[in-house]
């Protein structure tokens, strides 16, 4: 019997399809960001295409570099605006309009359970938080725009049962890092990682986006959270179902079944050079840092800002450290303002930047220099990701980053919170 991914792709193909099939599904949403839309437009021009298929379903977000601080960036934004107008993209969210395109389609109820999104960037897997399947197609998004579909292989599914509960001082990002550190990349390779189980009831949509964001770093194709009461409560009033929700059948042909025990997780730090190189924070505690960052499509949600502000309230960032905080969206920034979180960050000596990807988008703003050490909640820590290739990049959850920014060195947030490590 079919998996949720097979059901979603069957609907989008208009026929029953199964894992391994090469298919041309028609997505409900196509997403592109400001750093690729100009390339896509140039490719459409090169191929002589003047109109795109179903332009009303195309969403473009100015999130990788919302504040243009160079002549090149100003020009790129102008070209993106021209492309959006010329090809009549239905949802063009320019500077100051919504924020990070891997997130606000969830916030705004543009997507819901059972829907299919396809796009350029790998992190549209976040849409799985509300049971929508996000499949990246990289540069072939040009064909998707021009022809209305592009090939994809129907992925197999790995089913993950989430149990237990997070200990105090441990965040869902720690669990997500631990998961990709322990998982066999061969098992996750090109699969949809589907999260279900008793502990999902304790994870809100912010937490689910974090959980959906990380498996792709290890080579998974996408991720899904099985729609449940949490999904339903979140979507009430913001999403009008257009398609049927999809859940895997109990006897679906999963590639593998895995467990994720939240109770066994302790704060994690991914050491250079890859996100899956996660170790318990104790192994790198004491490492001096210069730079810290809270944000990105993995961990710049309201929950993350609340956790960080909880630690930073009444404290100061260490004198030699600069801390950047980037709310993922305008809505998260507004909520953070209402709750007084922005005041906490300002008081602690942190900088709050424009909603979007923040530092994680190549370090174009607030990046790192040669020999510097950074700890942040970005998606990846490949050398050069945040600026100079000779900087050392560590990844962690928002509590560990906030605690480390205060201490001036990597430190276990449970100590700062007064919990036993």
């Amino acid at each position, binding site marked *: 019997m079919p998996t949720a991914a097979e059901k979603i792709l069957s609907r989008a193909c208009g026929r029953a399809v199964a894992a*391994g099939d090469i298919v041309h599904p028609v997505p409900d949403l196509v997403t592109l960001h400001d750093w690729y839309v100009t390339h896509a437009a140039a490719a459409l021009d090169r191929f*002589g295409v003047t*109109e795109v298929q179903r332009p009303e379903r195309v969403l473009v977000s100015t999130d990788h570099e919302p504040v243009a601080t160079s002549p090149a960036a100003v020009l790129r934004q102008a070209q993106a605006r021209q492309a959006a107008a010329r090809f009549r993209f239905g949802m063009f969210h320019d500077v100051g309009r919504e924020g990070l395109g891997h997130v606000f389609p969830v916030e705004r109820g543009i997507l819901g359970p059972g829907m299919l999104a396809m796009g350029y960037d790998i992190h549209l897997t976040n849409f799985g938080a509300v049971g929508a399947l996000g499949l990246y197609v990289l*540069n072939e998004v040009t064909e998707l725009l021009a022809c209305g579909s592009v090939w994809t292989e129907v*992925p197999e599914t790995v089913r993950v049962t989430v149990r237990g509960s997070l200990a105090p001082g441990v965040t869902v990002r720690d669990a997500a890092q631990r998961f990709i550190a322990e998982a066999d990349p061969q098992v996750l390779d090109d699969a949809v990682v589907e999260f279900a189980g008793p502990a999902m009831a304790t994870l809100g949509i912010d937490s689910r986006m974090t959980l959906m964001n990380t498996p792709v770093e290890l*080579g998974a194709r996408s991720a899904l959270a099985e729609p449940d009461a949490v999904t339903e409560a979140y979507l009430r009033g913001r999403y009008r179902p257009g398609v049927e929700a999809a859940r895997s059948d109990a006897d679906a042909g999963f590639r593998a079944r895995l467990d994720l025990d939240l109770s066994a997780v302790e704060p994690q730090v991914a050491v250079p050079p890859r996100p899956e190189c996660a170790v318990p924070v104790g192994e790198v505690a004491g490492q001096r840092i210069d730079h810290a960052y809270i944000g990105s499509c993995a961990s710049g949600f309201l929950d993350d800002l609340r956790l960080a502000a909880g630690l930073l309230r009444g404290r100061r960032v260490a004198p030699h450290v600069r801390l950047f905080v980037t709310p993922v969206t305008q809505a998260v920034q507004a909520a953070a303002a209402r709750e007084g979180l922005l005041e906490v960050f300002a008081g602690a000596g942190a900088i709050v930047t424009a909603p979007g990807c923040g530092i994680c988008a190549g370090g174009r703003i607030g990046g790192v220099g040669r020999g510097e050490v950074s700890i942040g909640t970005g998606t990846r820590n490949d050398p050069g990701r945040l600026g100079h290739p000779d900087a050392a990049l560590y990844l962690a959850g928002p509590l560990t980053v906030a605690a480390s920014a205060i201490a001036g060195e990597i430190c276990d947030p449970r100590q700062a919170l007064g919990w036993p490590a």
Partner: protein
Amino acid sequence: MTAFNWVLRGSAWVFGHDVAVDGDLMPLEFALRRETDPEVLRHHLFAQLDSGLAARFRPGDIIVAGRRFAQGNPHIQGLLGLRGAGLGLVAESVPGGSFRNAVSAGLRMLPRAEGAIGEAATGDALEIDFRTGLFRNLTRGTERRWPPLPPGLQTIIEVGGWEASFRQRLAMMKAAEPAGPNAPRL
């Protein structure tokens, strides 16, 4: 027009597991500057592992690799370089993003060749039919058969990769629906 050559005959170049797409297969700088010319990229293959290696490849040679060949952030440049050098690829596995890029580059490959690195040593003479999945080590006199690409993807390789296949599709759409409301205008 000559028929597409699915059979390659050449020397084996054997690599281990986890060859990274950035750094091992191709220096990251080519991805950052979005270089996509296979003729440029072929000269920089594996440059950080062995700067003289690219010059020793001959068209028809085969890269034999272990698990997770071209792992990492899915940049297409290394795959385009392999195609530009006229190489084939036999790998125990290729992660999804790089697999897509390899198809897009039009690379002849057997991406699910379990146990491949035990079947050849660097310098062995190989003959591989990428359409059927038949792998022959002529030096050792051995034979293996691995899953070939599915037919739907072989057609993309056969026409030369994604750009050529996309161009064909646009032409077919134009022929089928010249007056459709959303038809691409060519």
